[in-house]
């Protein structure tokens, strides 16, 4: 079987070594790049299945590299950053990054995010039914079931849930969710999003206060996790 290949673009050799050991021992093949230039070269000659990109590279701004890569590269790009600056992360996500990790991150988290991003990249886009552990969404008939029994959702709740579920494992920014569900005119009215996420959680979560499907990413957005126990 072909191992998925991961390109690590990070100027710190220690981090590259750590990631290489971690990823190789988990059955990924790893390519390393120490600079943005090297990284872009590598992606253009041997496109990897996934890119781990450090935002703080010495030779070029990580955001520029991301934009540059996104001109042709469609596989997942995951941002690694030492910055907890939410604006920076939101900017990267808006520029086409699939996910982000903040240093220091734990290995378990890293592997779960990579698995989820790669699974996403390989799924059939035309599937009319999404089935998760306790939730299923039948898009053709607009039926959402929890533990086998149908639950009633309003039109907005339904479109919010289907948008989230189509992006299983991925962080969606507040602005993106508002644009897609309520329209560009409402992209700053986050109060809608807060209220509908709360309502949706009451309907689909076993414990709405300790959600396992719709995860809050503080200051950034929401992440849907279809099958929480496989993480």
């Amino acid at each position, binding site marked *: 079987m072909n191992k998925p290949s991961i390109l690590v673009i990070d100027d710190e050799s220690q981090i590259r070594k750590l990631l290489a050991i971690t990823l190789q021992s988990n059955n990924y093949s790893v390519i390393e790049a120490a600079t943005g230039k090297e990284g872009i070269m590598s992606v253009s000659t041997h496109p990897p299945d996934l890119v781990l990109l450090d935002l703080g590279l010495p030779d070029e701004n990580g955001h520029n590299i991301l934009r540059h890569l996104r001109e042709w590269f469609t596989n997942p790009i995951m941002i690694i950053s030492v910055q*907890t600056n*939410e*604006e920076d992360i939101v900017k990267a996500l808006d520029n086409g990054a699939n996910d982000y990790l903040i240093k*220091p991150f734990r290995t378990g988290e890293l592997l779960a995010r990579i698995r989820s991003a790669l699974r996403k990249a390989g799924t059939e886009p035309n599937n009319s039914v999404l089935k998760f552990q306790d939730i299923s969404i039948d898009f053709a008939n607009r039926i959402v079931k929890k533990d086998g029994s149908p639950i009633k959702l*309003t*039109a*907005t709740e339904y479109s919010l849930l289907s948008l989230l579920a189509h992006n299983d494992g991925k962080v969606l920014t*507040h602005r993106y969710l508002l644009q897609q569900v309520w329209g560009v005119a409402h992209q700053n009215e*986050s*109060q*809608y999003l*807060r*209220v*509908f*996420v*709360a*309502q949706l959680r009451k309907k689909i979560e076993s414990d709405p*206060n*300790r959600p396992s499907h719709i995860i*809050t990413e*503080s*200051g950034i957005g929401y992440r849907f996790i279809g099958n929480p126990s496989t993480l």
Partner: protein
Amino acid sequence: MKKFLFSRSNIKKQFFISVSLVVATSLIGFTIQGFVGYRGVAFMLLVTVSILAMFLDIVPVLAASFLSALVWDFFFIPPRFTLTVGMAEDRILLLMYFVIAMINAALTNKIRMIEKAIKERDEKEKSVRFYNTLLNSLSHELRTPITTILGSTDNLQARSGKLSDADKEELINEISVASIRLNQQVENLLNMSRLESGVFRVKKDWCDINELVYKTLQRLEPKLQKYRLAVEIPDQLPLFKLDFGLMEQIIYNLIMNVTQHTPEDTLITIQADCVRDKLVLTLADNGTGFPQNEIDNVFEKFYRLKGSPTGGTGLGLSIVKGFVEAHHGTVRLENLPVRGSKFTIEIPTEKTYVTKLKNE
């Protein structure tokens, strides 16, 4: 030490006070000069100027001395309603009046300068003391975990063959615990420097308090397993405009503080409410409470209760205070009547009830 009642920016106000007090004294003098005589009035004016000198800056006081001398001359010294002074002894008195008023102003000013110098020196000493505490605390809190990590890796590298599997596991566990602790300290230091950098911004957006509180609790789950929790948030609580990330850090630090200072099985109660235009957030525990004489110091940077366990830098609560104040809010701590203590955070901010969307 006496406080300065007025700042420089209030110079107009100071002039106004000088002039009005001199005018008021003159009016009183005018009505009672039959009893006290015009020389008595001079003493009344002198007292007024002296009082002014105690509170105001030198320039308004000098103006008051000058004005009062003029008033005394014009309205009281015969011949009245002229600036001429009839008797020679009154001329000397007027001159002396003026000199005494000036000396008064100058001396008071000098005393105040000295006070200011002392205060500055005190502050300098305080900051040196503060810096020493900082270095002590930091070197201890950062070097302890680093020593653990280095020691453990040295052991693992050099004596790998001689260590039992259980020992190895123990050492690896030590490294892990030390790293988490180190990370926590660095996180606190970064937050503190973020606060003090001045480039720090509050990014407000609508927040669901329920989501905020539970999100924070989820992050703290491993720590909270041995504690009892009660969360009381009313269903109809509006959304508030706050910085979600900062609020999360505030609640996180408060809970961390409780877990550091109270025994296991302590009950932690978190309440949120909307009182007028304020979000009121309280976090209470039924632990041992704070020593009453230290309660005012807990929000100070690097302040640690006497005999508190290792693992903290004394930064957590000062970050809470900093982040709350960045929201223009207040935080206070009190001991509860029976047992335990309570933190109360009040933040004035916009709120909204989104109700009409229910059926969308």
